[in-house]
């Protein structure tokens, strides 16, 4: 613990305590909210329509679909976008890099709901379409962060590594990549949280997930169903963001 505090650069014990408290806020809020939800649901008498969705089997199945979509999409993005970003940052051609960064910026202005619905119209509805849309949508931000992370490595650090006799590959693996890790991870974290949100929209194209509960609750005017779906999605997003934050702290290179 003492080493952690030094590495994080937190000088006073009070701030370190505040940091630990901050790390616990998200899970505490989630537990509190889930507890309130359970208590509220237990005070209600559910009609037959509500009983059909507000039972553990249904909720666990939807949650599993939701997490599956999120995790598979994020994994695919990580294994596709990070290597592509590394390759692209190796090219010395400025036009290629500028084009990729430009496309990434326009991609960010594109609404996710538009991408997913357009893909459903020109291709088909269902899980695969949602997966493709999620990967396509998160690909650009992660790619962009990988390129920016590698670019922002101090030129003098690169020079010193070269001066120590490292080959370009060694410079990449031992110097540039470790120094780019925080930026790359920040990109992955954003895309993970974002994917949880977009996976909710996947219900519009029949790809399942907890969005089903929100949409059914809205259509059938059953607010308990709607609220349960929404609260669960929000809790998943918060927990995933929290886990990604912990991973970010752990995987950060020591010197920085």
């Amino acid at each position, binding site marked *: 613990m003492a080493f952690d505090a030094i590495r994080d650069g937190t000088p006073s014990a009070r701030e370190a305590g*505040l940091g630990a408290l901050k790390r616990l806020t998200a899970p505490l809020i989630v537990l509190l909210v889930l507890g309130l939800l359970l208590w509220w649901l237990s005070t209600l008498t559910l009609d037959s329509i509500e009983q059909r969705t507000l039972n553990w089997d249904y909720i666990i199945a939807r949650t599993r679909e939701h997490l599956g979509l999120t995790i598979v999409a994020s994994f695919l993005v990580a294994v596709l976008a990070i290597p592509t970003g590394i390759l692209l940052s190796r090219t010395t051609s400025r036009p290629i890099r500028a084009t990729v960064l430009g496309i990434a910026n326009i991609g960010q*202005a594109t*609404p996710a*709901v538009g991408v997913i619905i357009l893909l459903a*119209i020109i291709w088909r509805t269902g899980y695969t379409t949602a997966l493709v849309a999620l990967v396509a949508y998160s690909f650009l931000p992660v790619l962009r962060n990988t390129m920016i992370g590698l670019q922002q490595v101090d030129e003098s650090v690169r020079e010193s590594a070269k001066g120590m006799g490292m080959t370009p590959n060694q410079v990449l693996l031992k110097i540039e990549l470790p120094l780019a890790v925080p930026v790359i991870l920040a990109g992955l974290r954003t895309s993970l949280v974002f994917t949880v949100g977009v996976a909710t929209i996947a219900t519009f194209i029949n790809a399942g997930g907890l969005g089903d509960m*929100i949409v059914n609750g*809205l259509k059938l005017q059953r607010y308990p169903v*709607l609220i349960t779906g929404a609260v669960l999605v929000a809790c998943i997003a918060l927990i995933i*963001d929290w886990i990604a934050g912990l991973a970010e702290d752990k995987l950060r290179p020591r010197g920085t």
Partner: protein
Amino acid sequence: MSEFDFSGLLTFWARRWDDILNLVLEHVTVVAVSLVIAMVIGVGVGMLVWNRPIPRSVVIASAGVALTIPSLAMLAVLIPPFGLGWTPTVIALVLYSLLPIVRNTVVGLREVPPAIMESAKGMGMSPTTVLFQIQLPMAWPIILTGVRVAAQLTIGIAAIAAYVAGPGLGQFIFQGLSSLGSKNALNYALTGTLGVVILALVIDAVFVSITRSTTSRGLRA
């Protein structure tokens, strides 16, 4: 699988030009209204907490929680108390805008060099005067950058709000989904999506010029 027909798209645009303009106008209005409300709240809160460590981290952490919640979930929980339409949309957009605006306000106010603060104090200014006459103008470009980020965010989220009968171009996107299989499905969804992208790019450009024209003259590069 529907065929892409470019001349069909052009006819579609020509025939529904008034509808499209109307939706664009709604989209801009809902985003602008939300941003103005978020700016009043966000800059105000930022000015209250910028030099108090604990309220500051509490405010920024809660704004961060709001931003993490998926937009469909946020809109959904706002429906039972506020119904459908503009109200839940504006509230959701304001909540999403708060993090970038509050965070940038705090950063901007804190980044004023201590030497300048000292000189202002030495000239006999009270802390409030320093805040309004020195710090706020110097932080303004950074605050506006926060608003610009919030604008990009809310333009996209407003598209989803059409699902809860919110205003704007999202209506065309969902119209495309509900007419899936018909000839115009692609035209609707494509028009809605392209409209949002173009709107986002145009508004971003507008922000660049707003930032230039409202930055205190001495600070302009």
